[in-house]
């Protein structure tokens, strides 16, 4: 097979994330492309969480899709939850000590889901025990069931490495490492490497290594995964949070303020870890503020001194930043907000993903000021977009909102090691030294030469002001200052070319054009390839910037193909991109594929939905995935 997919599930806090990292590392080292999504509740311990990974032998971005080839279950809830997720001929690894556990007795499972499952089970003739599920899967769906006694395995571990029972039980999640390694025939050396990478040398590493060998011996069966195409070289294996953090370091960030919020906070922790840049005398100040209002205010204050400054947050925090953004806007302060979208509205689905914050980002804060809003579709884009965001902020002296989402943030992916020589740093228009009288808001051009606090006396105010930054309410000045400030919109239009605002993939003369952004990318690219096999010619227009908007290309595709052949694909309810398409081009989006369950759009459900749309449906709402 060119690719395999697996789901590993277990209770939140049970070590699953670690297992998934180890496997990602091991596969990446072999030269596979890896994409591993993590789904979890807003909960610290006990609720069901899982990783959903695709391992691709080809040199392309893997997409998330169903069904999977392997389901590895730490606990009964995983078996129940994902019973219908495995492909025919696939494998399920579970704990046979739990064979008699019943779905009704799984306290941590939400009632809503329990009801759905029990209904399905009864339709499938499943009595409700783990055993009955396993039997059904083996019988009806030709799935290879591998029931292991986790108790016995841990017993063996105990014997072989001399740990006490309580400690051994911490290794349950490692069973899944062994199982996947065994089925895919992962090189032992790669596994060893990945374990070392994760645990360094030491006891835990050794126990894990020993344990994986024990498990591998027990797991019968194999999946023939093709050898990877990539033959050598270096790869980066990162989460979206990490990719952004790295790029901020490269891009010259020197101040990051934040207030903890899922799924943004991990970016700040990574920055904190690498705060001493290259171990030298340069460093980034990472500042935990008392709230997001303080975070944006501090980032703006810092930016006034000349330090590249940013914050990272999610919906609730972003709401609190809106007033500050307006101040940055009227004062022409470069500042970047990395906006990690999650399921909204309000607290919503704090650990699930979404793309429903687009409009609130585009229109944040009262009044009018120029701003830039860009969005990233995968880890590589996120890396380079972060650097762009910092440059754009300086170039246009205005706030930049960089939209990413929880899917990206928490997905681990392999990508090329960035060539940092490609990372250009432009600080924009800075003032020449030794001026007699400095005017921060000099009318001579829309972008006035910038000086930093500490060098010239200057004034800033959130009130409308004159060239020197003092308050004035005079009408003519108001018109001039508004025009100067707002005409940066033209500079932005001119300075960020249309080609930077989108990417177009797929067929040259498509029957159907998918329109999407952010994390839709991976699944859309895969779906159009799959559709091609079925004889459907589709292309994917990936929006990378909302302000400035890719007006020309969108106008062109509407003109060339007509609204009926354009499908907006988004992780939200309203198809928000459609609003911006109308606003910018006057074209009304007529067909939509939407998903707002907080789970990512999978390429398989997307392909099916596209076909439904082709057959006449105007809107498809997706809901695959638990």
């Amino acid at each position, binding site marked *: 097979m060119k690719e395999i997919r697996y789901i590993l599930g277990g209770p939140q806090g049970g070590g699953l994330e670690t297992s998934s990292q180890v496997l990602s590392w091991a596969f990446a080292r072999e030269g596979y492309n890896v994409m591993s999504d993590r789904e979890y509740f807003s909960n610290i311990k006990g609720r069901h969480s899982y990783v959903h990974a695709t391992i691709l032998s080809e040199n392309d971005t893997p997409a998330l899709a169903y069904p999977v080839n392997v389901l590895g279950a730490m606990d009964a809830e995983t078996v129940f939850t994902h019973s219908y997720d495995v492909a025919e001929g696939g494998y399920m690894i579970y704990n046979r000590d739990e064979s008699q556990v019943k779905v009704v007795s799984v306290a941590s499972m939400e009632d809503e889901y329990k009801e759905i499952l029990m209904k399905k089970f009864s339709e499938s003739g499943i009595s409700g025990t783990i055993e009955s599920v396993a039997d059904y899967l083996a019988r009806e769906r030709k799935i290879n069931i591998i029931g292991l006694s986790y108790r016995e395995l841990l017993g063996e571990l105990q014997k072989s490495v001399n740990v006490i029972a309580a400690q051994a039980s911490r290794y349950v999640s490692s069973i899944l490492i062994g199982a996947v390694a065994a089925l895919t025939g992962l090189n032992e050396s790669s596994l060893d490497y990945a374990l070392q990478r994760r645990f360094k040398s030491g006891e835990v590493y050794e126990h894990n290594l020993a344990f994986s060998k024990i498990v591998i011996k027990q797991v019968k069966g194999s999946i023939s995964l093709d050898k990877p195409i990539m033959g050598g070289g270096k790869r980066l294996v990162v989460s979206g949070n990490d990719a952004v953090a790295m790029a901020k370091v490269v891009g010259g960030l020197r101040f990051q303020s934040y207030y903890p919020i899922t799924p943004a906070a991990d970016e700040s922790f990574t920055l904190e870890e690498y705060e001493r840049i290259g171990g030298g005398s340069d460093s980034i100040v990472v500042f935990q503020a008392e709230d997001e209002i303080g975070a944006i205010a501090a980032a703006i204050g810092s930016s006034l001194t000349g330090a590249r400054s940013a914050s990272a947050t999610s919906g609730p925090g972003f709401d609190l930043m809106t007033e500050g953004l307006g101040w940055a806007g009227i004062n022409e302060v470069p500042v970047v907000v990395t906006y990690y979208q999650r399921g909204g509205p309000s607290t919503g689905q704090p650990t699930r993903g979404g793309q429903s914050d687009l409009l609130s980002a585009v229109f944040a804060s009262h009044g009018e000021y120029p701003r830039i809003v860009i969005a990233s579709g995968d880890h590589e884009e996120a890396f380079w977009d972060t650097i762009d965001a910092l440059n754009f902020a300086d170039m246009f002296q205005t706030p930049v909102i960089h939209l990413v989402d929880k899917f990206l943030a928490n997905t681990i992916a392999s990508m090329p090691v*960035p060539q940092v020589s490609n990372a250009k740093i432009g600080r924009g228009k800075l003032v020449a030294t030794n001026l007699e009288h400095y005017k921060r808001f000099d009318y001579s051009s829309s972008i006035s030469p910038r000086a930093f606090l500490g060098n010239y006396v200057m004034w800033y105010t959130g009130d409308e002001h004159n060239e020197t930054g003092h308050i004035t309410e005079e009408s003519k000045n108001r018109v001039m200052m508004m025009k100067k400030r707002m005409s940066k919109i033209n500079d932005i239009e001119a300075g960020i070319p249309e080609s930077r605002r989108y990417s177009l993939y797929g067929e040259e003369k498509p029957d159907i054009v998918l329109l999407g952004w952010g994390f839709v990318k991976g699944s859309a690219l895969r779906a159009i390839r799959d559709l091609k096999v079925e004889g459907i010619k589709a292309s994917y227009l990936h929006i990378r910037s909302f302000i400035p908007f890719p007006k020309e290309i969108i106008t062109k595709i509407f003109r060339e193909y007509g609204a009926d052949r354009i499908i907006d694909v988004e992780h939200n309810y309203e198809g928000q991109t459609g609003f911006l398409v109308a606003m910018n081009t006057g074209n009304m989006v007529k067909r939509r594929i939407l998903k707002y369950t907080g789970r990512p759009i999978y390429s398989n459900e997307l392909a099916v939905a596209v076909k439904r749309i082709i057959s006449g449906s105007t809107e498809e709402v997706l809901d695959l995935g638990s």
Partner: protein
Amino acid sequence: MALKHASPNDFRSSVWNDWCPGCGNFGIVAAMYQMLAELNVDPEKTVIVSGIGCSGKTAHFINAEGVHTLHGRSLPFAEGIKLSNPELNVIVNVGDGDLLGIGAGHFVAMGRRNMDITVLMHDNTVYALTKGQAAPTLKRGEQTKSLPRPNMQDAINPIGLALASGYTFIARSYSSRIKHLKEIIRQAIEHRGSAFVDVLQPCVTFDDIHTYDYYNKRVYDIQENGWDPLAKNEQEAVQKATQALVKSYSMDERIPIGVFYRNISVPTFDERLNERLPYYIKNPPAKQPIEKDGNAIIDQEIFENTFSDFITEIVR
């Protein structure tokens, strides 16, 4: 660069001052002009940060860097400035409504950091610029001019709140005792750490209770009465803080002014940061070059070394 032999007038900006005639704010800004001149500070290295309110305009009246921020947010703006360029001398002029009403959360937070910033609170018991509503410094039952009914909320004790929040220099002065105020401001600026000064400031337009007369009759200098506010270690800190608190409660008949509390045993935030980032104070964020000829200063080697934990070599 610092002006040679600066005079107070050098710190007066060209902006027409539109405070009401007789406003207590004039005393505050006068004391600041004098003190900035005496300290002979560099106008470019001195940042006046202000909030929104009559008091917020102060930044425009002073000839130094001026950052007139948002209502309630002067402190986090000031902190961002200080964090990225600790060399700057950051002074906050802020209204009582701004600092202790909408901004109380930031006030508490800054105390916890002991950032080396001076906060001068213009205490006029009202939200002046919005026409005289009760500020958090107005006592319950008091009814200043534009209130339709007596105030329903209790006053905050600003000294008490500053003590609870961890400010290491806490004082009170009075806008028409310019000499006293000036000296307090000097001490506040010279103190290393978060300094808070509650400046009694008559609002002649909206506050007909706390007038010059009212204060003139009541204020007395606790230093003249022999109070030594200095705490040199943690134990002294508790002792001085509780005594300072007792003093701060007496506000009705006689109003104490002077330095209530000064604690030199708590490291400032830049010192804390410098422990973690050893070059921080010498080479803070604002002073670091981030590019060379338009390229990132991080080259491929530094990048790969720094992030080696994320990089793998494909091995077949």
